[in-house]
């Protein structure tokens, strides 16, 4: 068991995957010589040479190349520096990757991974702070994961690279420096399985990515008022672990769904609808939705904190659900 930073755990996954399989190829802006602006690929250029490449600033083309290279034997792992740049890759995902895996059936596989990171709270401004989870989770044929713990960062990235289908890995800029134990033999974490981050009986806080951390803080606060909150870390956004959601809601009968993307047509709305479809009879109160305000993310601290949800907002939502 070693204590690892989230970024180190991702690095370990890349290193292991590249050692095990010579067809794994890493590319992206500043990933090779500099080791990635968030240091996730540090040392990999030295270890794997030309299988780790710096690229020009060409997201649209890079994503399309990841798709086509994966059809022809490579296992590309592409880093898109900020989730805010993911819209530049969308044609490759929605009109290429999504389509060929279906229309050509079993004749091809598309084993590529796009790693990116989103999230706000650090004063990076409207074009570097978004979480566009629903943009990718919306696309049939893609899998989408969002690890919160270092162990899951390693395990989900390993699973993503091994998967024969496209996987988008949504990291969070405020998680890279968080530390926790990662088992020495941490292997792939199966895609599509949620994790109960904290057991509880009164209300389910169903969260994704760093919002799990805020939900845990909210659960602490609720505990002070004698409320037992369960925190469910979805880990995989698509395919969704509906069973885990239903199990939790059946137990607590109250649900708060939490996601850092915008609310309208956002990922939290999907969670809410899923609960309606699969656990309506278990509910004692309407589902509460917590998401980023439907507006661009402002720069100044006093504005940014008013837009991105935190433990206070989640606590208030839980109290509304229980009222």
């Amino acid at each position, binding site marked *: 068991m070693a204590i690892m930073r989230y970024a180190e755990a991702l690095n370990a996954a890349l290193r292991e995957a590249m050692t095990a399989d010579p067809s794994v190829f890493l590319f992206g802006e*500043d990933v090779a010589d500099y080791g990635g602006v968030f240091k996730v690929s540090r040392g990999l250029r030295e270890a794997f040479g030309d299988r780790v490449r710096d690229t020009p*600033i060409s997201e649209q083309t890079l994503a399309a190349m990841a798709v086509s290279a994966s059809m022809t034997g490579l296992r590309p792992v592409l880093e898109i520096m900020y989730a805010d740049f993911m819209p530049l890759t969308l044609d490759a995902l929605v009109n290429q990757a999504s389509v060929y895996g279906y229309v050509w059936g079993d004749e091809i596989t598309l084993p590529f991974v796009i790693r990116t990171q989103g999230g706000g709270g650090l004063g990076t401004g409207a074009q570097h702070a978004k979480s566009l989870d629903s943009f990718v989770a919306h696309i049939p044929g893609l899998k989408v994961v969002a690890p919160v713990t270092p162990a899951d960062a390693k395990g989900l990235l390993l699973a993503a690279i091994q998967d024969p289908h496209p996987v988008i890995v949504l990291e969070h800029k405020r998680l890279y420096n968080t530390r926790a134990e990662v088992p020495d033999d941490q292997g792939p974490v199966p895609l599509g399985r949620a994790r109960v981050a904290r057991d509880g009986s009164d209300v389910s806080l169903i969260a994704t990515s760093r919002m799990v951390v805020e939900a845990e803080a909210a659960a602490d606060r609720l505990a002070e008022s004698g409320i037992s909150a369960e925190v469910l870390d979805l880990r995989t956004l698509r395919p969704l672990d509906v069973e885990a959601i239903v199990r939790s809601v059946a137990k607590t009968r109250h649900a708060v769904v939490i996601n850092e993307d915008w609310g309208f047509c956002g990922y939290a709305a999907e969670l809410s609808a899923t609960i309606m479809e699969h656990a309506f009879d278990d509910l004692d109160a309407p589902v509460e939705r917590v998401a980023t305000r439907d507006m661009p993310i402002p720069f100044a601290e006093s504005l940014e904190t008013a837009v991105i949800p935190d433990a206070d907002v989640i606590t208030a939502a839980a109290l509304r659900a229980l009222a």
Partner: protein
Amino acid sequence: MTPKPALPHNSPSIDEHLEMHRRMVVTRELERQLGALHKAGVTRGPIHRCDGQEAVGVGATGALEDRDCVTTTHRGHAVYIGKGLAPRRILAEILGRETGYNGGRAGHMLIGSPVHGMMGGNAIVGASIPAATGMALSAQVLGEDRIALATFGDGAAQTGICHESMNIAALWKLPVVFLLEHNEYGLTAHASTQSSVADLYIRAAGHGMPGEQIDGNDVVAVFQAVARAAARARRGDGPSLIEARTYRMEGFSTSDVGGYQSDEDLARWRARDPITLSRAVLVEALGEDRVMDVERAAAETVAAAAEAAQADPPPHFVPHAPSDPRAFATEGR
């Protein structure tokens, strides 16, 4: 055939040169203040300084009219100053104050002041290029006497939208100037890892427009090249590409840990500092006292601006009604 109107003069007068010099010094002082404020922990998020590159943004905007539209990048401070924006309100925006040009909503990368024709910094690499191209389209279609200028880096020059913008602009003879600010790096990656050709101005030939390479540390050379390209755009002859060679003296941003720029390169370029080069010419023409007075006043302006901006209040949050997805939800706001 009607004869083309005579070309406007395309060299700055000595007074114009002195004003550009002042603006370069203001920009440099602004960058230094920001460096110090960052160290003191007063700033938020990364800040991209343009130390050593001031002649590009200042010289280019010096050759334009107030009504001309300019777009820039995440590294746009020289352009903001060149376009006539006030240091006090720029600094207030960068510090996230209510008194900033955009009320603290934008931060340093997205400052816009349409009344100045300052149509935004942009933190999406490459996006300043089609932005200026579209502003040139509106001028052409509306028959308005204004042009647009895009500044962008050598990294941005490799994006698809750069090439697509140049093609459309040349095809439709749009009144736009493409000013490629080549500072040798895109984030931490040297230009040689980004393009198979070292000289990027030659790409203009592929789009049938004039392209030239200039000394981006010579503010007069930048002014002259942009004045020529702007005149061509105003005549309706279409776009031009100017590759201004310069060098980034500070890190990519205040969060850059550095280590990849060689000491020799830094020393070589420091010897060609745009402010030093410009000062030598001006001192020769106007005498040392006059130039130093201007520099001193510029530094004082920025120091006072920084102090005032820090004392300004943070903005109060107000929801953005046009972003609200629900009808009637904004009633009464």
